[in-house]
């Protein structure tokens, strides 16, 4: 029997039981929809993390205090205070593969100008912060080495701060704002960069000389971290080796002893995040996949009912010349069509939800094309896999007994 005839028969059978077919499709629709949404979220998050990190510069290297337990538990609070000004100076003096260096001390708090206030984060940095993070000062200027030496109370602000503190316009340059009650004179405004892929406002910050933040705000003698950039991306490994050598020397770490700082490149972080995201996506997809299994069992159930209900029809078809294979194919095609149609609707549904999340909620979600292809293949497999048993049952019926069935 040719395929078109089979298709006609299967279509008619589905149409005759449209509501029931739809109900058994529903499981597949939800299952495939869930898988597509999970994959879209996974892919979207990965892409946005990637965007964010590469916008920060892929040759960036971060030095943090404490041993190599990136993201893990840290033992001793004194370990957190190992990065000092001497380290920074040693790096600046001895660097070869390292291009720019900026120590970093951050503190969050309230910033006030006149009647307006906002809470934000102040970054104590060196002027090379701009080069490392690919930022530029749009108006005014960056603080100078002299400002750092004198711990001047000057700052460069992001556009969001300007918007919050000067809602009525007016030139912010030269104005004095108060951050945690300390007055700072604005000497520059950063060119706006907007939100990053994770939905973080990259213009909601205040840059100030690191010395000012350490002495006048925090009264601390250590840095939170030191950020550097390698000459270029391909020199990242050499730069890390160089930095390790410099810091081990200034920290007087004996051979064989462990570092009391950790150095990570942007690439490394990117890879770690990538594999973490892959893992999370995989778990979500597997969970959603289980609903497909349940949906498949639902289809099998409906097909078994259908085969029993249509025993007489099967007997009739056989008595006018349908072979077991014809009958088997008919029911297989029916279950494949239910699951593939359900899959198609599910893909549409998942895509719609992802699209809505992306445009309305600004949530990173991107349906990868391959996930659509995989969904279709999985639906065909479900249709064949769960339709096979009922179809075989139908095909093995005895025509005489089947046609007499009431």
């Amino acid at each position, binding site marked *: *029997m*040719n395929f*078109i*005839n089979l298709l006609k*028969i299967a279509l*008619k059978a589905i149409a*005759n039981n449209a509501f029931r077919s739809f109900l058994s499709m529903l499981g597949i629709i939800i299952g495939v929809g869930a898988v597509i949404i999970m994959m879209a979220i996974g892919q979207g998050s990965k892409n946005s993390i990637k965007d964010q990190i590469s916008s920060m510069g892929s040759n960036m290297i971060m030095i943090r205090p404490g041993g190599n337990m990136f993201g893990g538990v840290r033992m001793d609070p004194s370990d957190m205070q190992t990065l000092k000004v001497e380290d920074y100076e040693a790096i600046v003096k001895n660097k070869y593969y390292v291009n720019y260096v900026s120590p970093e001390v951050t503190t969050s708090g309230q910033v006030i100008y006149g009647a307006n206030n906002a809470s934000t984060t102040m970054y104590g940095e060196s002027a090379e912060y701009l080069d490392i993070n690919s930022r530029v000062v749009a108006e005014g200027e960056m603080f100078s080495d002299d400002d750092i030496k004198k711990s001047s109370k000057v700052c460069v602000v992001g556009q969001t701060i300007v918007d919050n503190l000067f809602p009525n316009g007016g030139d912010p340059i030269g104005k004095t704002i108060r951050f945690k009650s300390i007055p700072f004179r604005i000497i520059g405004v950063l060119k706006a960069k907007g939100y990053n892929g994770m939905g973080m406002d990259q213009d909601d910050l205040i840059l100030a000389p690191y010395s000012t933040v350490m002495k006048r705000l925090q009264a601390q003698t250590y840095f939170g971290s030191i950020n550097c950039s390698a000459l270029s991306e391909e020199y990242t490994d050499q730069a890390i080796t160089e930095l390790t050598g410099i810091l081990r020397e200034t920290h007087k770490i004996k051979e064989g002893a462990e570092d009391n700082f950790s150095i990570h490149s942007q690439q490394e972080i990117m890879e770690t995040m990538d594999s973490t995201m892959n893992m999370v996506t995989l778990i979500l997809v597997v969970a959603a996949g289980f609903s497909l299994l349940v949906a498949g069992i639902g289809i099998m159930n409906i097909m078994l009912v259908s085969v029993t209900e249509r025993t*007489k*029809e099967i*007997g*009739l*078809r*056989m*008595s*006018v*010349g*349908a*072979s*077991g*294979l*014809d009958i088997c194919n008919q029911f297989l095609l029916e279950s494949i069509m239910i699951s593939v149609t359900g899959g198609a609707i599910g893909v549409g549904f998942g895509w719609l939800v992802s699209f809505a999340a992306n445009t309305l909620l600004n949530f990173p979600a991107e349906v990868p094309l391959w996930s659509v292809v995989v969904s279709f293949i999985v639906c065909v497999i479900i249709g064949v896999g769960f339709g096979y048993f009922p179809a075989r049952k139908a095909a093995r019926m005895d*025509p*005489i007994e089947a*046609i007499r069935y009431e």
Partner: protein
Amino acid sequence: MAEDTRKVIIELDNVKRDFQVGSEVVHALRGVSFKIYEGEFVTIMGTSGSGKSTLLNQLGCLDTPTSGEYYLDGISVRTMQRRQRARLRNRKIGFVFQNYNLLAKTTAVENVELPLMYNSEYTAKMRREAAEKALTAVGLADRMEHKSNQMSGGQMQRVAIARALVNNPVIILADEATGNLDTRTSFEVLVLFQKLHAEGRTIIFVTHNPEIAQYSSRNIVLRDGKIREDVENKNILSAAEALANLPAPQDD
């Protein structure tokens, strides 16, 4: 003998069919032998349980004998595989069932097309044409697109007959084709079978009704799985005449 010049369509040679029911064996057919020639209109009669349906299932290649040989159009059926028998049913046999057995929610013409769906030599167009021709032959040219639940019993039975004709079979088998119909409609169906007979078709017609035997060319009587009587009918009555002589329906 004159019979030797006619073509043999069916030949049964000592066909037996046993059914295992629990620990007991039911002998439904206890050795049946006969030949049916091209163009015969054979009625098969017998009491309930005498093996008529079992015999017809054998003839229709729906079942195989426990022992004995069955040749349909010269081909031995007993040794065939399921698949080959399906093909044989599709190409050489037209089966009419007692309770019509039409597909639900399906139009007359689609019901008639059904056997041809399983014959890849037919295109959709050829199928449609053949189905329309068969429906016209049974007098349902104006009921092509009616669904099975929109027709009377007699009409449904005629659709079933059209379906049995559509593949141009070498033999038409009918199991109590008039069993569910009133006298008048039964005669209408009988007229149809006589017309097919007149066109040269071979027909085997199982019935409970001894009257019907008078309208066929040969009558085989079964009892307890054996042939008790096998007589030719030299004086075939006309069903059309009988129908004309029936008292007219009251409310017409």
